[in-house]
């Protein structure tokens, strides 16, 4: 009896749809306090002063925390990958987006916790805000950060992600047509049914148990430990059951602040974001601005691509440099384009930080590439499916970063979708396979880019 390949039901499906699954918010610990955050009302402002004394004096309020309570307030989620941190857990000198946490409280109940956040006095001096990535590079643009409006720490201290392959100038010179287009997918919400939620319980021996909805228990535990400067054995994450993530629960948005409140109050603390907070203060998929110029021959070969990408990171980098690198690696889509000049910037704006979401970095470029290829076909008067087959990645073709494809499937998936949709392919395309290029499928301009798939 084989399990692999069998159409087996998901082990937890019945419990999920019949209210049997116990999620983080179903955990009930006696004596639990409610957490609430005081959030920035401004897109961009300097913090002149923070006075928590009135909130601290309220009966039933057990802890108030600000940046002063965090050992390492600024910690980057992917510092281990060489992306320095730029985002404070709590705002200290500035707020850079509406909804940014400035302080948090733990109180006997939710209503009291809300009143306590309202009792915290913060004086702001409003600053001009930047929202349009296209204006970020202007000399008179409002400055989101003191170092500027785009991320400066790609490898080699480059301020952008680059791809350079082949001879782009020659490709544009040889082209019969150059097709230009601009593509702009929007920010969208993850909309998990379960909002961001966390429950922290102090245990014997100074350990803290963190009930977390994270998509990555060890990763989130590492984030908390880094902010607190704690060894990992002081924390125990309990999780593994998440009410929808789609990338939005990698941010570890609640765990550190809830743990700080539990430490300070010596009580169990729960922080459950409202639906409004989930919509307005949790991270989103990034809006992207992509400009493509393709060098094309009139018989449908794509000789080269110049591309400029502006990734709207929101106020802080989070995973954006990673996302732009992945985007760069896949900016030719399912096709082989031998000459490339790609520049991608992580641009800061005064909006909620954007983050990973299903398809991170690539969803955007799939939209741009596939729409653009239709326009190329339209421009030169060629069938768009035939244009795709012609330029489809084949065994031994190389990716934008020079790696030979070992098991490409562009050809069979287009053949199969053509069958399914009733699209008639040419005889040549009907019999094409993913095998290495030869004959009319191997024009001169594709010879030099080829690699040996056996190498990998």
């Amino acid at each position: 009896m084989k399990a692999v390949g069998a159409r087996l039901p998901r082990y937890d499906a019945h419990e999920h749809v019949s209210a049997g699954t116990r999620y983080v918010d179903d955990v009930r610990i006696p004596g639990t306090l409610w957490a609430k955050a005081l959030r920035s009302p401004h897109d961009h402002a300097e913090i002149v002063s923070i006075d928590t004394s009135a909130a601290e004096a309220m009966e039933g309020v057990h802890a108030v925390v600000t940046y002063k309570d965090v050992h390492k307030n600024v910690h980057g989620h992917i510092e281990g990958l060489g992306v320095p941190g730029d985002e404070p857990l709590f705002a200290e000198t500035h707020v850079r987006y509406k909804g940014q946490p400035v302080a948090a409280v733990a109180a006997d109940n939710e209503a009291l916790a809300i009143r306590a956040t309202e009792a915290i006095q913060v004086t702001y001096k409003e600053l001009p805000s930047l929202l349009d990535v296209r204006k970020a590079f202007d000399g008179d643009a409002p400055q989101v950060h003191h170092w500027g409006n785009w991320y400066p720490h790609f490898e080699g201290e480059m301020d952008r992600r680059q791809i350079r392959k082949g001879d782009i100038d020659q490709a544009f010179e040889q082209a019969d047509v150059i097709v230009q287009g601009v593509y702009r997918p929007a920010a969208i919400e993850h909309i998990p049914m379960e909002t961001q939620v966390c429950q922290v319980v102090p245990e014997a021996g100074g350990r803290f148990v963190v009930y977390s909805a994270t998509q990555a228990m060890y990763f989130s535990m590492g984030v908390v430990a880094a902010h607190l400067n704690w060894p990992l054995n002081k924390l125990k994450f309990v999780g593994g059951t998440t009410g929808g993530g789609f990338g939005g629960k990698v941010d570890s948005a609640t765990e550190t602040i809830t743990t700080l409140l539990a430490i300070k109050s010596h009580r169990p603390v729960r922080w459950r974001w409202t639906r409004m907070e989930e919509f307005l203060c949790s991270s989103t998929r990034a809006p992207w601005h992509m400009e493509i110029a393709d060098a094309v021959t009139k018989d449908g070969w794509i000789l080269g691509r110049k591309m400029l990408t502006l990734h709207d990171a929101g106020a802080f980098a989070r995973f954006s440099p990673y996302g732009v690198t992945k985007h760069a690696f896949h900016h030719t889509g399912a096709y082989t384009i031998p000459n490339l000049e790609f520049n991608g910037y992580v641009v800061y704006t005064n909006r909620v930080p954007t983050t990973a979401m299903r398809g991170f970095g690539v969803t955007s470029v799939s939209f741009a590439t596939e729409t653009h290829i239709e326009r190329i076909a339209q421009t030169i008067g060629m069938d768009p499916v035939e244009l795709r087959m012609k330029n489809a990645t084949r065994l031994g073709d190389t990716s934008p970063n020079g790696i030979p494809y070992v098991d490409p499937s562009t050809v069979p998936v287009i053949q199969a979708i053509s069958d399914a949709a009733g699209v008639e392919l040419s005889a040549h395309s009907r019999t094409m396979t993913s095998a290495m290029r030869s004959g009319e499928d191997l024009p001169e301009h594709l010879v030099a880019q080829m690699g040996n798939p056996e190498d990998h």
Partner: protein
Amino acid sequence: MAKHRGRGIAAIEYPTGMNQNGDPSQAWIKLKMDGRVDVFAGTVDIGQGSKTVHSQIVADTLGVPMDWVTMDTSNTDSSAFCMGTFASRGTFIGGNAVRLAAEKVRNRILEIGGELLEIDPGDLEIIDGEVIAKGSPDKKIGVGDIAGAATFVKGELISGQGTALKDYATLDPETGAVTIPPHSAISYAACAVEVEVDEETGDVRVLKMSQVYDVGCAINPTMVEGQIEGGAIQGLGLGLLENCYPYYPSNDHRGGQFGSYLAPSMEDLPELECIILENPSADGPFGAKAIGEMANNAQPPAIATAIYNAVGVWVTELPITPEKVLRALEAKAAGIPESVTTGKVVRYDEALSITSHQSADAVVTFAV
């Protein structure tokens, strides 16, 4: 006013695992004294069904019934490290971790079984929970008996651990070139969408989505189809409905509740067709590749193209709302050309705006 139909096709690719690798998943397995299998891994099941898929991988690697296997991913004290459930890495990398752990357990079961049966372990196999001599199926012993003997006679806990880790791919910052593949595999897909566009209201309805996915080998075809169908509807939302900032880049008019943020609902559901192609990967567990994230990538361009084929206008800012469709139709009716040709350059959309920007010469740094 008329409704018009159009069809659009898109093809995509998507990498398996974290970009540039270096993202381990680990697992360890122990046998209870009746041979039942406890797997401790860190992969969070975010609804995609990784616990079920991992159980299938462990069951077949060991040769025991699926219902012998329990996956425990509940906490960081007992579970092994996992980088996380993201980057389409659960089935491939998490799956390889449990497979590697199960291979070690299987080898130990065969060794002890060989001692008990007095047969070379190389001549034994495990089928449906029994260790059986190849070619002599009457010579056999249950995995439960082996686990019991290990516990109570040999004084041994049968266990095994596995780590899936691919080396980090360093890149050249000038060219982006890497020395090793910066992914574990690449999956491919294509999507065909049929839409109906109402010229008068600008409303777009997706009538049908056909989709083809090459996911290597499907460990569980039903759950692969679940990913494809769920992703398709998210792709529909990306293409037509969802936007945090309806007047982007302005951040006014943000929808702060379900009533003011349009996500797809059941009334938007088109006819769905899923086709799975199997093109086994060399390194994935049982030939698998990823399916998770790519599932919402092909629909938005296919929808934009279908709209063009229906009413002859390109909308390349997502989502393609009725307002954008109507504005594009008005521009077309006013005779504004969809592209401008200058020499051999054919320009769609606004002028390329920032290509002249050069990296700042001044060194900029986060450090204060």
